[in-house]
């Protein structure tokens, strides 16, 4: 029996249609099963293990709660924001949504969970966290930008994980080259290891570099190294005496002439970055993250600069055993840099991530909240951590042996609250810092040339960033005015007992501070200020 191409096409089309109808019917029957409620959860983490971790959490949750069915929707990060906002605007969004404060409109789309965070998480019964307020079961007590929204003075999101930057290494290769498998613990040991790898490659005529790196991945590592080495400068910029400074404040300090990239204390940071570049894959500034991963997976480098969220994917991709260590920033005992160092350094701000928000329009608030409780309980977060090999967000949850290598070190100095000297006021300043990387890491790169180039062009870029930011801040203020006025009126004269729930005046004051400095700069430049 012969089949014509046309017939085959029609059969395929018919089969596709039948499958689609089947899926739709299954979906509809699930939705309409009267004995259970379906809630939907959306997230954008497609790295190895995360979707499986959600599947495992959902399986366990549905065992415990047979009348609730949970559907996971995973959307690639490139399109996620647009997708989520379209769903939210259209009133079709899932009940729980991974979201970021940077996407804005939090108060419009999501329900605060402030009333819940002081109550214990019911799924922690029988664990050491029994009776502990939900808020205090998170490693950061929800004191991250999504957990507690400072502008709205409300708790919003429950988080699942934390992250760090690490150098991941090929353990068998380390053994072969050095005879041991212990990673370096000091800066000098790290430099010596890199030299040894280079010598090994030279002797055997191998295409082998110490570090796989790329224009994408170098950024996080560079910020950690540079900010650690420049702690002395950041410390003196803590004018509010809170053991920290915001990037926009540090940018204002720059405009006020309180620091520059040519300050002597900055020099070590640039030298360390230059050294990192020398040991990285040649031409890494032209390479993407995927190229760096490929260099490492194929054994063309011994180490790779990687954030911990790549660790689960690397584990799936690499046919060899992996290890990880933190870039060892020089400490006070370093023979050359010691006198200027101010360590030990923290890996970053203690902030749990992967913020899951509760859709304001959910028809299943109780069930969605219950699922949030489960995935952030000791049991739920342990499942997440075990299956994904990502790090936990909940007190007492044990990371796997593999992910333990990525555990951030928080016992150390850190001065930036939300950024870095290399990640200042906004897009223009950040682009300026990155577009000049070639002056540091290009063929003719030098630390001094990079520092000079940064200072030469930074001021106008900070000004343009802050000017744009002022517009956004004022828009937020005015929007907040209407919402706060509405809340006051909705409560009625008897219900309202406190001043309007506006943005705290001290935070509005920061807008004025920015305006004051920007005006002064504009006056200096003879331009009209915004």
């Amino acid at each position: 029996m012969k089949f014509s191409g046309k017939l085959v096409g029609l059969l395929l089309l018919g089969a596709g249609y039948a499958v689609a109808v089947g899926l739709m019917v299954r979906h509809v029957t699930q939705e309409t099963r009267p004995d259970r409620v379906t809630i939907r959860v959306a997230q954008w983490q497609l790295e190895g293990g995360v979707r499986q971790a959600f599947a495992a959490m959902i399986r366990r949750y549905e065992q415990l709660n047979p009348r609730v069915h949970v559907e996971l929707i995973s959307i690639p990060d490139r399109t996620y924001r647009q997708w989520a906002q379209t769903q939210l605007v259209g009133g079709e969004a899932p009940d729980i949504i991974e979201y970021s404060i940077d996407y804005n409109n939090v108060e419009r789309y999501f329900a605060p969970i402030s009333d819940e965070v002081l109550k214990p998480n019911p799924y922690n019964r029988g664990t050491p966290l029994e009776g502990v307020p939900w808020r205090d079961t998170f490693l950061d007590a929800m004191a991250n930008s999504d957990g507690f929204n400072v502008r709205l003075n409300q708790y919003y999101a429950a988080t699942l994980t934390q992250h760090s930057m690490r150098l991941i290494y090929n353990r068998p290769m380390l053994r072969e080259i050095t005879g041991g498998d212990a990673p370096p613990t000091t800066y000098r040991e790290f430099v010596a290891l890199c030299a040894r790898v280079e010598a090994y490659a030279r002797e055997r005529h191998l295409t082998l570099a110490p570090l796989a790196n790329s224009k994408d991945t170098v950024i996080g590592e560079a910020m950690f190294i540079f900010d650690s080495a420049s702690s002395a400068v950041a410390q003196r910029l803590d004018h509010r005496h809170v053991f920290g400074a915001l990037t926009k404040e540090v940018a204002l300090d720059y405009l006020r002439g309180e620091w520059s990239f040519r300050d002597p204390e900055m020099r070590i940071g640039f030298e360390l970055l230059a050294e990192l570049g020398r040991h990285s894959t040649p031409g890494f500034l032209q390479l993407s993250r995927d190229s760096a991963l490929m260099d490492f997976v194929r054994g063309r480098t011994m180490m790779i600069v990687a954030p911990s969220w790549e660790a689960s994917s690397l584990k799936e991709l690499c046919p060899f055993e992996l290890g990880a260590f933190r870039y060892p920033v020089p400490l006070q005992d370093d023979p050359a840099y010691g006198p200027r160092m101010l360590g030990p350094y923290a890996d970053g701000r203690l902030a749990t991530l992967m913020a899951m928000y509760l859709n304001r329009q959910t028809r299943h608030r109780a069930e969605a909240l219950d699922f949030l409780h489960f995935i952030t309980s000791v049991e739920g977060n342990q499942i997440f951590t075990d299956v994904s090999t990502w790090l936990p967000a909940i007190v007492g949850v044990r990371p796997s042996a593999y992910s333990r290598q990525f555990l951030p070190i928080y016992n150390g100095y850190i001065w930036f609250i939300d950024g870095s000297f290399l990640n200042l006021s906004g897009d223009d300043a950040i682009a300026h810092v990155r577009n000049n990387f070639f002056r540091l890491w290009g063929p003719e790169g030098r630390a001094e040339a990079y520092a000079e180039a940064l200072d030469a062009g930074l001021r106008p870029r900070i000004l343009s960033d802050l000017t744009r930011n002022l517009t956004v801040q004022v828009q937020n203020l005015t929007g907040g005015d209407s919402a706060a006025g509405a809340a006051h009126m909705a409560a009625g004269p008897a219900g309202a007992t406190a001043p309007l729930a506006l943005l705290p005046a001290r935070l509005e004051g920061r807008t004025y501070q920015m305006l004051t400095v920007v005006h002064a700069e504009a006056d200096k430049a003879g331009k009209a200020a915004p």
Partner: protein
Amino acid sequence: MRRAPCLLLLLGTLPLVARAADAPTGWPALMRLKADDALRDFAAATPGRETDFGRAVALLARSPVTPEQVAEARGIFTRLADSGTDDVAQGARYFLGRIAQHHLETADPAEAARQYRQLLAEHGDSLWAQTALTRLALLELYPDDPAVTPAAAVAAGERLLAQARLPAAQSELHLVLADAIFFYRLPAAEALPHLLAAERLGRLDRPTRADVLVQIAEVLALGGDAAQARKFYTTFLAEYPLDQRNFMVREKLAAGVGRGR
């Protein structure tokens, strides 16, 4: 017959429905910044001062906010503020200040201050006036006049403390003053009374209280009062065991607190 209970139930709810129709219903939508929905709801509500007020507040939130919208809102607020003394009149006066402060294409700080002062003079104890107080303080602390020295600006802001009646307004005003003192790089010790007062008032949210405890301890340490500084560092450690700054605070305590950094 089976319909009778339903009918009775429906009739029973009629007074509630009627009351709901009387009250402007745009506020819930506006709380979520859904200004178009709010405008529609206010348009359908029974006309009255609160409905007019709601429409004007919603106009300030409807994107894109045009100068014509702001002008229309300003006209409504002016009429409402000048024709009564009720909550709506006070709210309208407050919003007239906010329009001049932030909503106009070119801000008019003098006009904003004038509106806030009038509100404080006429209804000093009201929630609207107490809300306006800290916004007036910002105009005093960050004047649009380079001739005003930082010390004079802070002094003008401090004079407003006498008008702060509600603890929440007092607390926020003290924090605003301390922040301005740090911004102008005035001696940190000048911020100390404000930080202490804000802490004593007990109105700080949890993250802000953590900051204030650290600030008080740091400023005390800078001033050489190691014993008092230690007390606040220790309070911070006890109340915020998960705060990352614990490391720095413990380092400070281990080093004997001391003067400076």
